[in-house]
């Protein structure tokens, strides 16, 4: 009886270990799979040409990814620029200023944003953000825009990453010891001075981690962006231009037109690039994190 009990214990441990290792390896398996499938196009074209050519004409056999890469970078960049200040101020307010009552009511509401399906953000973007840009924002700058643009994608994405960044950075602020604030306050610092010079400084590594989490989510987000960004395969030159981010390219085209030679391989290469860029972001962020952590000790 007893040996059975122990056997089960050991077995459970092993099974969970294997599962953990497998899920950890999954990203490598995916990367290898994508690489295998994108080899046909890499055999004919140089990676350099694929990455930096702006010409996207699958029927003519031209697969330049630059418009899509730039599209992704622009949309993500706009989203981050909008999201960072708003999220930081919100989480500073929630963790430092708000009464417990306000905090308890607001936090679940913000977290709720994370649970909304991205297609709903997309629809909302089409109904509200796109017309807003077309009718009000673009005329403000004296240009025409259909509204389906980088700005629209950026705004929708920013709202989608709010809950992640706010949630994580509030946690980070909460982890700053209360006595540290007391130390600053007891010297006669105002709350704002304390936040600015002490809390934000102490929390910086965590805040960067929060932003990176939001960033990787934004970079890979497909549905909502696809619906509002316009999907024109051209390198954008302003935020009011349409863009065609990588995930949208893959989602829109994979499964169709695969009779075109090398098309399938090109799209899987695009997936590989997407994966690589997200991993790259993460690595850079970790390096920054370690540096920042060391310097503020």
């Amino acid at each position: 009886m007893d040996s059975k009990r122990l056997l089960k214990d050991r077995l459970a441990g092993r099974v969970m270990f294997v599962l953990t290792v497998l899920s950890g390896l999954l990203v490598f398996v995916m990367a290898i799979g994508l690489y295998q499938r994108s080899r046909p196009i890499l055999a004919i074209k140089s990676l350099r040409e694929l990455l930096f050519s702006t010409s996207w004409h699958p029927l003519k056999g031209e697969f330049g990814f630059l418009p899509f890469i730039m599209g992704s970078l622009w949309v993500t960049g706009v989203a981050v620029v909008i999201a960072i200040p708003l999220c930081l101020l919100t989480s500073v307010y929630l963790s430092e200023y708000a009464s417990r009552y306000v905090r308890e009511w607001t936090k679940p509401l913000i977290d709720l944003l994370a649970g909304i399906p991205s297609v709903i953000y997309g629809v909302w973007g089409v109904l509200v953000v796109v017309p807003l840009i077309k009718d009000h924002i673009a005329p403000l700058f004296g240009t025409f825009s259909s509204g389906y643009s980088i700005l629209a994608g950026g705004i929708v994405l920013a709202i989608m990453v709010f809950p992640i960044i706010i949630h994580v950075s509030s946690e980070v602020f909460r982890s700053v010891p209360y006595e540290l604030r007391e130390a600053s306050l007891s010297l006669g610092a105002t709350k704002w001075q304390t936040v600015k010079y002490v809390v934000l400084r102490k929390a910086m590594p965590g805040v960067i981690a929060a932003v990176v989490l939001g960033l990787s989510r934004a970079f890979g987000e497909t549905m909502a962006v696809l619906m509002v960004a316009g999907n024109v395969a051209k390198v954008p030159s302003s935020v009011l231009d349409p863009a065609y981010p990588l995930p949208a390219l893959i989602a829109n085209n994979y499964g169709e037109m695969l009779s075109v030679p090398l098309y399938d391989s090109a799209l899987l290469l695009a997936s590989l690039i997407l994966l690589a860029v997200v991993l790259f972001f993460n690595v850079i962020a970790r390096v920054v994190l370690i540096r920042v952590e060391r310097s503020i000790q």
Partner: protein
Amino acid sequence: MEFKTHISVRNLNVFYGDQQALKDITIDIPDKGIIVIIGPSGCGKTTLLKSFNRLIDSTDGVRVSGEVLVDGENIFDPKVEVTRIRKKMGLLSQNPYPLPMSIYDNVAYGPRIHGQKNKKELGRIVEHYLRESGLWEEVKDRLRSPASRLSVGQQQRLCLARGLAVEPEIILADEPTSALDPKSSRHIEESFLRLKERYTTIVVTHILRQAKRLADYVIFLYLGELIEHGPAEEIFENPREEMTREYMKGIIS
């Protein structure tokens, strides 16, 4: 014995939610010298200390009634600007919490937030107060390195220097040696003794021997009530209350 009063507490009640942490405290705290608040843990010593610089304000669900007069001004008056009150008092907490910056910037933090921009003057202030807290010789060659690299004992002296740098009249110390080794504790105690001519120093402690080494004036709290207070020799040699006597003997703790 006659004292000049520095802080006077009038009918102070503090509640955390339904719990009453301080019950109708009324006391005059003398000017200058070391005032020690003793009593078992959880008896409201820290609450009393933190009501002096209104740090209890930021605790959720706290209610305060009564008055605390510092230099005759009621600091719980809603019209009072709290940062000015806090600037009058330097705080030393149980564990040293150096700010996440260099040794130099820690001491310069206070003067800077109050508008001191002159580099030369800041340098002078930093050196002066690091000497005052007895840390200068140990850190003068590495002022720019992070304060977190100092030992805990050095950090506590740094915190003292940081507090003194805003030129307070009062030093509030909440069990300032409880995280320190004996040698560092002695350093801190020596600093207090050295500074007591110029500052009103209020020390919370539950170490009776420390209280005896430091105190000029003693306040004994028990379960949120003020049991007894008076000049150190009176309280230690000849306490009036049974409860104080029992505490001194170690019967209640």
